[in-house]
């Protein structure tokens, strides 16, 4: 937790002030009004919109570990009960606990998880708790990507898009497998919908073409997910070793 800091436009030391990053200083509207009335310094409004922060009792558990949508053994024989249990109980829960420990009492605790992931990614210079926020999001998505008795083939619009963008379901499967096998180190493989041709999330392509709006297979390192690039994930596959080592070893 950061110590009390000086207000950016009055210079006064204010105990409740928190820095959310080295770039921005946040005050509530009442606090700013206090500063404006007591200081003779320039009270120009900061150019960035600043949301209100109500001082409330910090919730020690802003995020709860989402329960699995199925029992631990429901994915057998493809994924053992042991793996699912360790993965959810130790890894997923570990990230939830670490995230809570870092964000409790800060303004991040009131953010929705997805916003927290995007904010903490900080455009490629991640804040310390990005790994936990992102892994919580990724694992929530991962458990939903699977279901007991799942498998089979997609239908409808998704199937049409797959055939348009990959040629066939087999081609898609091959591309996903290849991505999974060539992800060096830990990471994830995604089937995602990509709106823009430019691979940078904060650029809107000023000249849209038929290369936009496609399904893509993406691989991301460690805890990164393609939502930070403004893609829309459809499927997630965890290729960290802990996801498969007990069942498949190498």
């Amino acid at each position: 937790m950061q110590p009390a800091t000086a207000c950016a436009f009055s210079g006064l030391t204010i105990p409740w002030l928190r820095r959310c990053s080295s770039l921005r200083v946040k005050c509530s509207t009442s606090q700013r009004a206090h500063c404006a009335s007591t200081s003779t310094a320039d009270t120009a409004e900061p150019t960035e919109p600043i949301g209100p922060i109500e001082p409330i009792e910090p919730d020690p558990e802003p995020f709860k570990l989402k329960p699995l949508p199925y029992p631990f053994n429901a994915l057998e024989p493809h994924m053992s009960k042991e793996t699912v249990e360790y993965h959810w109980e130790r890894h997923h829960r570990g990230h939830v606990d670490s995230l809570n420990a870092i964000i409790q009492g800060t303004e991040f605790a009131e953010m929705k998880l997805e916003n927290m992931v995007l904010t903490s990614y900080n455009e490629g210079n991640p804040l310390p708790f990005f790994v936990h926020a992102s892994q919580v999001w990724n694992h929530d998505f991962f458990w939903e990507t699977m279901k007991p008795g799942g498998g089979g083939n997609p239908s409808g619009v998704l199937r049409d898009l797959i055939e348009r963008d990959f040629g066939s379901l087999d081609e898609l499967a091959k591309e996903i497998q290849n991505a999974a096998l060539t992800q060096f180190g830990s990471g994830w493989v995604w089937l995602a919908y990509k709106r823009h041709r430019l691979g940078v999330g904060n650029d809107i392509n000023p000249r849209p073409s038929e290369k936009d709006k496609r399904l893509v297979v993406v691989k991301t390192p460690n805890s990164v997910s393609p939502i930070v690039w403004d893609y829309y994930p459809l499927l997630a596959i965890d290729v960290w070793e802990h996801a498969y080592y007990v069942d498949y070893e190498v």
Partner: protein
Amino acid sequence: MALRSVVSRKTLAPALRHYRSLTTFTLPDLPYDYGALEPAISGEIMRLHHQKHHQTYVTNYNKALEQLDAAVSKGDVRGVVQLQSALKFNGGGHVNHSIFWQNLKPVSEGGGEPPHGALGWAIDKDFGSLEALVKKINSEGAALQGSGWVWLALDNEQKILKVETTPNQDPLVTKGTSLVPLLGIDVWEHAYYLQYKNVRPDYLTNIWKVINWKYASEVYEKESA
């Protein structure tokens, strides 16, 4: 003049290629049995780690080398550059694991015995004590996100010991050309998961019982001579 243009590099190159053989690599043998490091590291982990993981790095490195050779001969710049990540990953994996097997030793053969001599003094000078060094390595190893290695390194230019981490299979030299690896600890999940599950700190605590300080001392004395 005419002769020179006939026997130019371009005409010699195909002939030279026949005589240039590609050095390929093989998996080095472990200097101890798979089960010899128990209970710190299980025999099952050692076997898989050596026979499957390290072997895969060697195999894929050789493959990448062949592809590199072909691309270089063809003058395929794009192909050469594209192979760099595979070379770094698999070559790094081979380099790192070859060092790692030397860094470990069964207790019965001196594993876990603290360093003496020049390396012992250097550790005391640069870290205060062996305990402080172990604590630092363990905390950096535990904090490493994803996969990677934690190293005790000798900086040959500044003549001091350092603790460094590298991601994935990046060899220590990627952190500095003057860095010499003395000890490396693999913190990829495959190095400990079957035995310790997600509790990497326990693995790091126990591995010191089988660390081969003698090898580290030899490297240190040779490099700082």
